[in-house]
């Protein structure tokens, strides 16, 4: 098994994605949750790159660029929101922010 097949990349991607997902569900700090989302996004990126490598198709790597751009934009907006909330209510957890409940 000296050769590095796409399968390994996918397994790693699945592992990172699961860590991100579970982290999102179990942590209450908005900043940590935010980082978990980033983990999940990058796991998907890894899967894209791995598949591009396995299938020898450049399309997967192109998709990654798009994901990275969107993720960067998302970080800007998301972090801004998190910072704004933290300024107002120090030490807030995600569960405290439930004013939009029906």
């Amino acid at each position, binding site marked *: 098994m000296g050769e590095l097949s796409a399968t390994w990349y996918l397994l790693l991607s699945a592992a990172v994605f699961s860590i991100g997902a579970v982290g999102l569900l179990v942590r*209450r700090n908005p900043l940590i*949750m935010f980082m978990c989302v980033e983990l999940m996004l990058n796991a998907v990126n890894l899967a894209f790159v791995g598949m591009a490598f396995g299938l020898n198709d450049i399309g997967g790597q192109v998709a990654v660029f798009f994901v990275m751009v969107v993720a960067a934009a998302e970080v800007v907006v998301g972090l801004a929101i998190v910072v704004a909330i933290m300024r107002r209510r120090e030490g807030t957890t*995600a569960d405290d922010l439930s004013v*939009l*409940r*029906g």
Partner: protein
Amino acid sequence: MTDLVYFVPLLPLLGFATLLVVGSRLGEPAAGWLATLAIGGSFLAAVGTWIGLVNRDEDDRVVEKIVFEWVPAGRFSVDVGFLVDPLSVAMILFVTGLGTLIHLYSIGYMHGDENYAKYFVYLNLFAFSMLMLVLGNNLLITFLGWEGVGLCSYFLISFWFTDEKNASAGKKAFVTNRVGDWGFMVAMFLTFATIGSISYVDIAGTAGQLSTKVATGIALLLFIGAMGKSAQFPLYLWLPDAMAGPTPVSALIHAATMVTAGVYLLTRVNAVLYEASGWATNLIAWVGVGTALFAATIAVAQNDIKKVLAYSTVSQLGYMILAVGVGAYVAAIFHMITHAFFKALLFLGSGSVIHGMDNDQDMRRYGGLKAFMPITAATFIVAWLAIAGVPPFAGFWSKDEILLSAWDTGGLNGRLLWLVGLITALLTAFYMSRQVFMTFFGRYRYADPDEDEVTAAWSGLVGASTESLELATTTVAAATAEVEAADSPEEKAAASVNLDNAIAAESEARSRVETAREAQRTRPIPESGEPNDAGVAVDFLPETVLARAEHHPHESPWQMTMPLVVLAGFSVVAGLLNLPFTKGLHFLEQWLEPALAHEHVITTGAATKWLLALIAIAAGAVGIAVAFRTYIQRRLDADKFERPVLAQAWYYDRTVSDFMGGPGRRLFDAITWFDANVIDGAVNAAGSAASRGGNFVRRAQSGFVRSYALGMSLGSVALLVWFVLRISS
């Protein structure tokens, strides 16, 4: 020249708008003159339009003038436009002409009314609506005018609305007309659904392709509309009550113009009537002639001068509907025009009488008025001769035309229609003669006491003598006491003399009471036509009698008599429009020909025509003669004709009211309940179901971001599992 048609409705509309804004500032009589000027200008424009149409080629006398496209909606399109053709021009000529005269008359009649300007606002609005009704080039514009005249009719019937009676008469007219309007509307829908257009030109052009069933349906529905507006049985109920309005309004709206709208409408769609089943048009004819007879019998027993004319109008409208039913549209329009002249004249004449008699409308108190109101009397007599069918006055020619057309439909049916029409003519002559004789001839009766007033006088006399007897009795008692209390013989003697005098006075008073009672019991019942005599009780008559004795009837001012004279002129000569003798004299028929494709053609021979005319003249003469013997010579007892059942209009009105107030009311209550609970219930249930469902689903929105994330995760996993299972299977 036909472009002048735009000014015909425009001028009354401008008059209405101006008066609405500045009317009350203009006041009396400027507001009245402005309104008269507006409708007068409209009349001139109508004459111009007529000349324009005359100058056109005979085959080219149907002109459509589109103002703008009003409702463009897919296949459905309605224009605001005018149809200028011989029929509509004939209508606008007499509507504006008559309207001008009645506006002028109103200036005098409404003198001193506190809502003087408002009256003319309504009157101009009415003129505008009526002109839209007859000029509209499609059913919808006509319907707009139809509703407009109905609204103005309501306003003007309840013009003196502070009296509860007038206000409810207006409501009655409005509500009754709704029934007819329903027919009109459904007919309009049906026309669009089958023909695909509601313009008159299209209807006339494509009516031939309608199936008989549809044509019958449209014809009958429009007839229901006509029943309401033209006051036919069973919807005539509102017209007699409509007399609560000012008399010029009765003349203009409820005799000459608005009530003929139904006849006009049926004439306008003669192509549809032609395609309808025979039984439908026959039904129209029978409803018309039945109403004519029914209303004529009621008119015989009315004592209110305007009620007689109201029932007479219902009856004459019945004639026109009869003419429409037998396909004699020219005769219908002819009678509409002549009737407009003489019936407006009758109403205006009665208005002049009422004006001169202190607003008393009871004909039993009139009599001998020709000496006081010579112009009113002379013109009224002309109108009477016209409506009674005396040649050569206008009414004779048009009524005879209708009777002839009825006869000419042939068979037993035609003969029966003719016979009922003839009996109605006889009754018409009778009740109109009765009215004229009671009002203008005989003894002046206004100062005569009523039956009730005489009774009151007698009880007054008996009461007064009883009172003086009581006084005498107390005097006796006082004198007796004085005798007993006397001390000396001289005083006693003097007191005894007093006592004797008092006793004598008491017995005298007692005998006076007995005489009064006896006289009250045996007072003479006057011969028919003789005045009630109060006899020795004359000093006890109520003050109203004295007030009436003080009253002096007077002729009306020139604004009122001038229209009377003009209308009297028309009532004499309007027959010239369509003399029956030769084809060349059928001016109206030739004129209307382009608009009436399906006119019934008379086939009866000349000899029969003459015979029928002579019989009609004889019927009129009999009616007048019987009335003369009854009301002038007093050889016949008037009570024989004035039956209570007739005075109560065959109890039809009361039956309808009782039904509507009783079972009808409960039915409507039930419908209201159904609407409030079932219909509204279903709507409300749909609303509250959505609301409750939303409340339930709302709980899922907890506001916890992580539970949303969990949901998304589980959902994704579920989707994934589903895909994988699908691929592997």
